[in-house]
């Protein structure tokens, strides 16, 4: 467990030191931030090594847990409990690698930024919070990490707070995820009271009724949908691209948005007990993956393309979960963390060189930025699902699981399986199309802006190269049966039902992650079709955006007007309501206060008039008073 403590505390202390000392010693910001993250990475490596070596005997999954303190609350106790298993170790490794890459990358990307020290400290704090989510064994502890991530995301999106757009995006991200977090909080209450404990282990062991499980998981799904930017709460993620690009790579691609998926994987036994939730999840995933992929097809901003692509890929994970395969979802989570972080950093490198986010102003960067081009190509191939890159295998796992859910009896209704399968297959083609468009517009043909691209400094190049390695190899490594599958599968499988010598388990949850021939051929054909269509359009007019001629382009570019819809249905009525509340406060509450003062003054003036300085008048009043009193006493006494 020491490695877990080091992994958590090192970035946290680095963040603390950075925030306290940062403004005074700006030179210390880089070493402090990088050291904290390096320590975290080393501990994550130790944990991953432990997970790979495994326990003795090997049939049992490797799990370590510790309960540091228990907080009595009067009803359901909270405990400061941590737990690490194979999957947690892998996710923590992914988090630490991406965090370190981003820290190193940021030293060059934000060189000379006046707020670099607080930026680096917030990234460290975010790393600590994400690792806390990964290692938490108590829902309350998890909630703490979850919320700290949210606030770090808010601060970092608003890094350039001088700009109106950054501020608005930061607030939007915060408010929209908050909407989901309310459901998450109540889900924790439902699970805690249902299981009599907030510990995840106890919740999983508890015999929850189907009704409790359904209510709790539906509420949890709210939080997941908010955090992982799924329809209908996905609108914050494309706007969150106002933050610096490394932040988009770390928070809005690799880690925080994947935390929702991770949470479902952790609590997957509860979800398996609630088929209704799985069906809802399948619908959300299907809508999100296809809708976001189509929206990505028509974006001009390179970062917005990647953001919609993130929504779409997260929907793949959610779809994998919906069709009963936590392993496939976890697999895609890990590969996506690698290649999407790589793509964002590559995009950052392009933006750094060209000085614009807009792809129509790029072009021809292939020769000017060979390293960026090569690594971005790897990332894009992985995203599109070209074999043998990582994304191909993880997508295959999801597709295979969906196929199985559609064709066989399982915890999920087969129509949900069909829905996810069809949406996922269509999305494969659309993904290949937008990936090809991004690739061609950015790197090929002639440079369209006057600015000549150039290769970024070494601190930005190396993270790209490092992240390109897992983008290629991760799929091949993790497809091996009996590693990831065993770690992520539901606990019922860990307790003996599954034997390591039998990878071909056809029952649920799907444990076999290796690609199947039929599905692979189909998806590769779809990739070729999607990419080919865009390439064909591009060949005819290489200077023009291949999707410029699409008739529905406006709808795609505005992401099906969801934002406009929210603006009309939610934002404007709320604004109107606030205005009337403001008026009521000003006129009614403030008016009452001001009126009280004014009327008291008037009354005083009235009373003051009796004080005219005429002693005889006073005396008359006195006498009248005395007479009244006497008369009163006499009448009352008789």
């Amino acid at each position, binding site marked *: 467990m020491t490695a877990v403590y080091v992994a958590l505390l090192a970035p946290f202390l680095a963040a603390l030191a950075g925030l306290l000392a940062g403004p005074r010693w700006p030179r210390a910001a880089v070493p402090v931030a990088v050291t904290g993250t390096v320590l975290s990475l080393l501990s994550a490596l130790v944990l991953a090594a432990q997970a790979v070596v495994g326990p003795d005997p090997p049939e049992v999954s490797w799990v370590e847990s510790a309960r540091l303190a228990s907080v009595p609350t009067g009803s359901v106790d909270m405990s400061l409990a941590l737990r690490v298993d194979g999957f947690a170790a892998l996710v923590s490794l992914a988090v630490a690698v991406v965090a370190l890459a981003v820290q190193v990358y940021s030293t060059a990307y934000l060189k000379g930024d006046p707020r670099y020290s607080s930026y680096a400290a917030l990234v460290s704090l975010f790393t600590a919070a994400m690792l806390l989510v990964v290692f938490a064994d108590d829902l309350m502890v998890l909630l703490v990490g979850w919320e700290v991530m949210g606030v770090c995301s808010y601060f970092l999106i608003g890094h350039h707070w001088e700009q109106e757009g950054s501020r608005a995006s930061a607030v939007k991200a915060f408010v929209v995820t908050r909407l989901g977090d309310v459901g998450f909080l109540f889900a924790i209450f439902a699970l805690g009271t249902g299981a009599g404990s907030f510990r995840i282990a106890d919740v999983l062991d508890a015999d929850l009724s189907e009704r409790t499980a359904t209510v709790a998981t539906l509420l949890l799904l709210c939080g997941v949908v908010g955090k992982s930017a799924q329809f209908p709460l996905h609108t914050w993620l494309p706007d969150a691209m106002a933050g610096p690009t490394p932040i988009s790579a770390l928070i809005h691609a690799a880690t925080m948005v994947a935390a929702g998926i991770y949470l479902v994987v952790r609590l997957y036994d509860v979800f398996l007990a609630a088929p209704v939730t799985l069906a809802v999840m399948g619908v959300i995933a299907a809508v999100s993956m296809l809708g976001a992929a189509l929206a990505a097809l028509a974006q001009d901003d390179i970062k917005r393309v990647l953001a919609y692509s993130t929504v779409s890929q997260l929907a793949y994970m959610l779809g994998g979960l919906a069709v009963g395969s936590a392993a496939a979802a976890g697999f895609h989570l890990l590969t996506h963390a690698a290649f999407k972080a790589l793509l964002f950093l590559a995009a950052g490198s392009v933006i750094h060189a060209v000085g614009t986010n807009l792809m129509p102003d790029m072009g021809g960067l292939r020769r000017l930025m060979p390293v960026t081009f090569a690594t971005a190509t790897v990332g894009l191939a992985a995203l599109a699902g070209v074999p043998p890159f990582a994304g191909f295998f993880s997508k295959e796992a999801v597709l295979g699981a969906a196929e199985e859910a559609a064709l066989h009896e399982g915890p999920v209704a087969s129509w949900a399986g069909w829905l996810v399968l069809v949406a996922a297959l269509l999305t494969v083609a659309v993904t290949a199309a937008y990936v090809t468009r991004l690739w061609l517009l950015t790197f090929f043909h002639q440079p369209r802006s006057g600015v000549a691209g150039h290769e970024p400094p070494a601190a930005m190049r190396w993270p790209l190269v490092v992240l390109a390695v897992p983008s290629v190899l991760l799929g091949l490594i993790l497809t091996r049966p009996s590693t990831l599958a065993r770690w992520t599968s539901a606990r019922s499988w860990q307790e003996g039902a599954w034997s390591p010598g039998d990878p071909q388990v056809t029952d649920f949850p799907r444990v076999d992650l290796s690609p199947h021939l039929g599905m692979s051929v189909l998806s590769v054909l779809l990739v070729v079709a999607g990419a080919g269509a865009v390439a064909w359009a591009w060949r005819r007019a290489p200077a023009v955006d291949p999707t410029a001629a699409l008739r529905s382009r406006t709808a795609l570019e505005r992401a099906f007007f969801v934002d406009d819809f929210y603006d009309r249905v939610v934002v404007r009525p709320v604004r109107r309501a606030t205005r009337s509340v403001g008026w009521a406060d000003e006129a009614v509450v403030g008016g009452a206060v001001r009126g009280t003062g004014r009327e008291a003054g*008037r009354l005083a*003036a009235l009373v*003051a008039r009796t004080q005219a*300085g*005429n*002693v*005889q008048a006073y005396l008359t009043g006195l*006498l009248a008073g005395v007479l009244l009193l006497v008369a009163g006493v006499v009448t009352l006494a008789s």
Partner: protein
Amino acid sequence: MPLLMPVLLAGLLFSIGVYGVLARRNAILVLMAVELMLNAVNINLVAFDVWLRDELLAGQVFTLFVITIAAAEVGLGLAIILLVFRNRQTAQLDLLDELAEAEDAA
């Protein structure tokens, strides 16, 4: 002699005194009205003394004290009025409204 007559007289005198104190403008006349009230009290004291047949004649003795004190008080009062008149060239009570609340105080 019945008690009624002196008590009526005293009441009348006292009422005239109260009217004078409350209604007259001239400070000296107000002072004189105060004397009227004092004397009304004196008549009361003597009348009740006789009516009660007090062995120690406390009422009459007390009257002598009141007359003495009234003399001193009038002296003091007249001196004050004199000073007021010297300073302000008037002894009209309704003009002496220095202590009034200022008009614009509200």
